[in-house]
């Protein structure tokens, strides 16, 4: 798989420590939304639909580091908005790397080439550029509602790889995705030389008006089964093979909404990265006072019924690897064989 050994060891150590401490709920990835402002306006994206004064707000570096400390997750994902619009992004990344956090800087890459030319970042095993690409050129440009974005992203990926940075892709697949085109996209990214690819089916944000476009569970299983039929060994994914099997319908998991806690200018988001049901003033309050039983498939909550997204289920897949022999065996088998 596409995750380096040192990162796997760090995550494994973190999970085992939580198990030894008998913690029922623990975070794996902190979603640090430094700002909501973006230089794209993708249809259906609920992250950018705010009034002007909110889009102008951003977290301070001190607030970010405080949240990282409070949370304690070994991985920090910086989504947005567009984090390269965050004026202190270089300083923030440097501080996180100094703290030995594995940073996934999630960007549409429109500004990446410029930032690399400016020397804003230094290659490190702790820093990965996670480039948002929802498929091949036409598919991606349609997804982000702007022509030319794919080409700019690919140019930036080439440059980042050439400079020795870790680069992955981050792909959300929506209703109507064509398996053959997705497979071709995997071939293209593999040829480009990215370290690994990340996938997730789309899901509507609760405040976004788009409730019909996103994938339903059965469709998701069918789509990913088609995509991974006779999976090529060369394709590398920067996520748990159990999560990919879950997308195919080969594993049945419950959501782990506390696995990827989200911090932004409003505070600690309840209950997860996707739903915005309120905000806690501290990580402790989020973990201890959120009514977790009201979320996930078993709860019967209609908002959770069809959700299969990465931020809710990757943590489940990782946990299963360490809490069940079947999970461990399936992970090892998929990792060694390259098959799902």
């Amino acid at each position, binding site marked *: 798989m596409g995750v380096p050994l040192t990162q796997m060891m760090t995550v494994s150590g973190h999970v085992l420590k939580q198990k030894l401490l008998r913690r029922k709920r623990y975070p794996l990835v902190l979603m640090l939304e430094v700002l909501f402002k973006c230089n794209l306006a993708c249809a259906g994206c609920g992250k950018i639909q705010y009034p002007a*004064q*909110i889009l102008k707000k951003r977290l301070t570096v001190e607030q970010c580091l405080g949240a990282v400390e409070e949370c304690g997750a070994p991985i920090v994902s910086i989504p947005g908005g567009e984090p390269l619009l965050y004026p202190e992004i270089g300083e923030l990344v440097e501080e996180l790397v100094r703290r030995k956090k594995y940073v996934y800087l999630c960007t549409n890459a429109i500004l990446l080439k410029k930032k690399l030319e400016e020397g804003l970042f230094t290659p490190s095993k702790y820093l990965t550029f996670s480039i948002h690409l929802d498929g091949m050129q036409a598919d991606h440009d349609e997804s982000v509602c702007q022509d030319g974005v794919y080409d700019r992203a690919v140019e930036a990926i080439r440059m980042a790889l050439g400079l020795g940075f870790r680069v992955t892709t981050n792909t959300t697949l929506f209703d109507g995705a064509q398996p053959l085109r997705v497979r071709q996209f995997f071939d293209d990214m593999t040829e480009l030389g990215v370290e690994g690819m990340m996938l997730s089916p789309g899901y509507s944000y609760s405040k976004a*008006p788009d409730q019909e476009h996103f994938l339903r569970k059965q469709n998701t299983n069918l789509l990913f089964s088609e995509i991974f039929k006779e999976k090529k060994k060369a394709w590398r994914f920067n996520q748990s093979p159990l999560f990919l099997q879950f997308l195919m319908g080969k594993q049945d998991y419950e959501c782990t909404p506390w696995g990827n806690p989200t911090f932004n200018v409003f505070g600690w988001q309840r209950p997860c990265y996707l739903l915005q049901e309120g905000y806690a003033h501290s990580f402790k309050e989020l973990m201890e006072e959120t009514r977790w039983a009201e979320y996930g498939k078993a709860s019967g909550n209609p908002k959770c019924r069809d959700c299969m997204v990465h931020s809710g289920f990757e943590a489940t897949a990782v946990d299963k690897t360490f809490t069940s022999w079947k999970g461990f065996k399936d992970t090892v088998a998929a990792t060694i064989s390259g098959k799902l």
Partner: protein
Amino acid sequence: MAEEKSLEGWAPTLDESLTIDEVIEMAFDYRGNTTIVKTDGSAVEGYIFNRAAEAREPFLEYFDKSGGGPFTLTYSQIANVEFSGKDAAAGKSWEAWQRRKAEAKAREVARSTGAGGENGC
């Protein structure tokens, strides 16, 4: 295709069928600024980003129109909430974009066959 409904411009009339708690809940879901009318007769404009309806003393939190805050108001201090600001989510769905794109394509076809039109996305 269903029309996207927005609460933009709505000034609720509170009565037995619509309580201030319900209006605050709608305002929390609203992606635009609101005008919070206080029980003392004053009003403040801002974006409501949080509420705790089940707290011992229910409260909401907001940033004002200039970005100041966060500020807190208890439900008991609030007489009404008006949906006065532009709804940032209105018309931004995937379907709306697809519809606009299809319309633009139709206009392009019409133009190539001799009729007039304009671009849109």
